[in-house]
């Protein structure tokens, strides 16, 4: 479903947190086309969450430019809110509300009400197999259910671009496969997906393009295959990663 219209364009992005000595992002250039399933692969503290927060307009930048479609994220936050769906790394839900109530609330905030909302929630509950748990409070749910609800809440409004920050942390193989299948299907239907992870296998399995980010810099770009092919002697992405960054990625 890829085409060559850019969905996200980032150029020379620099970000330094107040109080830190060095830049967390040290000049990122990145183009993500519409319909892409784009992976950002990097170890802890590489700057993945920082990058995503900036794309979503949650953080101010020090230098550079971030465009969603043709919109400047830093200026026209309102316009991009409808286009983007964020699935944060943390479980960003109200613990004392149920799975359904959380979905309802975030839907309402996207101005989806009434029957449309009910139908959309039923659809998501079904697709993410949350039916049985719909009326359980989040603080009584298992980690896997929380993760899936977290995912559902981020895409209740059917965003054109879905941004996921390590959405499979702490879920079992079954839940993970369910999420993968769902995301793949979504991508085939045209949703652009930006996916960060430090699991190599996930990136390899899911993504059409990968950027490896380390210490605030993108050190390598390409399809999984091309990356392995480019680095002679490497059998998988783990080897590639080790070769480029000198660090082994945890799997």
């Amino acid at each position, binding site marked *: 479903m890829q085409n060559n219209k850019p969905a996200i364009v980032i150029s020379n992005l620099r970000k330094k947190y107040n109080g830190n000595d060095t830049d967390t992002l040290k000049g990122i250039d990145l183009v993500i086309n519409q319909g892409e399933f784009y992976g950002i692969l990097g170890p802890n503290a590489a700057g993945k969450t920082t990058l995503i*927060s900036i794309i*979503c*307009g*949650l953080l101010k930048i020090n230098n550079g430019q971030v465009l969603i479609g043709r919109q400047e994220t830093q200026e026209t936050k*309102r316009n991009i*809110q*409808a286009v*983007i*769906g*964020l699935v*944060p790394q*943390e*479980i*960003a*839900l*109200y*613990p*004392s*509300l149920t799975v359904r*109530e959380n979905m309802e*609330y*975030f839907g*309402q*905030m*996207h*101005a989806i*009400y009434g029957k449309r909302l009910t139908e959309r929630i039923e659809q998501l509950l079904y697709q993410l197999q949350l039916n049985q748990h719909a009326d359980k*409070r989040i603080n009584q749910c298992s980690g896997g259910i929380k993760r899936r609800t977290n995912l559902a*809440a*981020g895409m209740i409004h059917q965003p054109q671009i879905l941004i996921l920050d390590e959405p499979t942390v702490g879920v079992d193989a079954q839940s993970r496969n369910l999420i993968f299948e769902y995301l793949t299907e979504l991508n085939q239907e045209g949703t652009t997906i930006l996916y960060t992870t430090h699991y190599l296998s996930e990136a390899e399995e899911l993504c059409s393009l990968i950027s490896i980010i380390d210490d605030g810099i993108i050190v390598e770009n390409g399809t999984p295959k091309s990356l392995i092919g480019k680095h002679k002697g490497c059998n998988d992405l783990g080897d590639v990663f080790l070769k480029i960054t000198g660090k082994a990625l945890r799997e």
Partner: protein
Amino acid sequence: MRKLWYNISKELLILVRDLPGLAILFFMPLLLIIVVTLTQNNAFQSVSGANINILFVDHDKSNMGALIKESLVASEEINLIDQYNNKSLTDSLISVLVAEGKFKAGVIISENTTNEAELKIISGLRKLVEGEEGIEEVVNIEGVQLLFDPVINGVVKISILNAVKMATKGAESGLMTKVLFNQLSEVIVTDDSVSLIILETLQQIEISDIPQQIVEVNDRYSGDSSKTIKPSITQNNVPAFSLFAMFFIVIPLAGSLIAEKNEGTYDRIRTLPVSYLNILMGKTLAYLLVCFMQFMLMVLVGIFVFPALLGLPALEMGDQYLAIFIATIFSALSAIGFGLLVGTYSSTHNQAAMFGAILVVIMAALGGIFMPVYMMPENLKIVSNLSPLRWGIDTYLDIFVRGAGLVYIWKNLLLLLGFFGVSLVIAAKRFG
């Protein structure tokens, strides 16, 4: 608007889900007013070192007036004031100033007090010396009138009353000595030393035999007697402590802001097409409902539980319902504003709970909930003007004890609302 409605529902749902928390929110304040009122009702601590301004006007312009004044001036607890804005005092001005609480009490020495007291003494004396009925009793001595602010702490009231009674008694003794001396000198004009001896003898008798009280001290609350509210400990405590309790909303409210920050829902909210102001207003209105219900519960306890179960005077609502309603809403808003500020600037629940709770107690103390503002040192009085609880308590006392309406309380209402407005803007800016 629709989003606002859903924001309110979300907050209410979250509140209702935490039933123990909600129960604490409603029942701890009740415990507070009950215990405080019961203990204060029986406590008669001495008020030492306090310096209370009291208005004083002397229409007598003779011995009694002068003697009472002298004795009150000598009293450490009392400052006599005989001018207001460079104008000398009249009875009606005193009545108004005291009724409005600008002064806690006023003393009016009626005209002819000395003359009539003298007549009374002479008549008593005749009775004593000549054993006959003497001249008919002098009636209609207005004597010393003592006016009190309806909003006066019971202990303070008693100490002022005692001071004035003592001063009056002292003045009577002095006057009596003089009258006796004059009477005697009419009889025995010749020898001073003889008359002195007789005088001393007579004075021994006087203490026990002459009518105990010659000049009456009449005390009453200043104000419009047609208004039915009777000052009482309940009337003072229920509104004041309701407000105090209302401000404890800071803990759950700040908690809900902090929870959103820490649980990551805040970041998610920021990616939603809804303004942060909308979210904050949702919280405001949900907690406003809580505050209002809390207040209603306190009022009901004051009306029904106090007299029925605790032997305390019942709360009287008066007729200023609109003023009560608006004052409650505005006070609750300022409490909520405070909660938004604490929630915005704290990063953990513990910080917010400690900081919020202690600050509420400090603001309440400054507001005069534990010790009346007029008894505070001057510097503290000035600082107390900055406490939203002071504005709220003053407003409530004006309504519940003085029977004041909106016309009288609008200034404090504006301060309360202004505080909320500023807090809301700060919270929205800081987050948004």
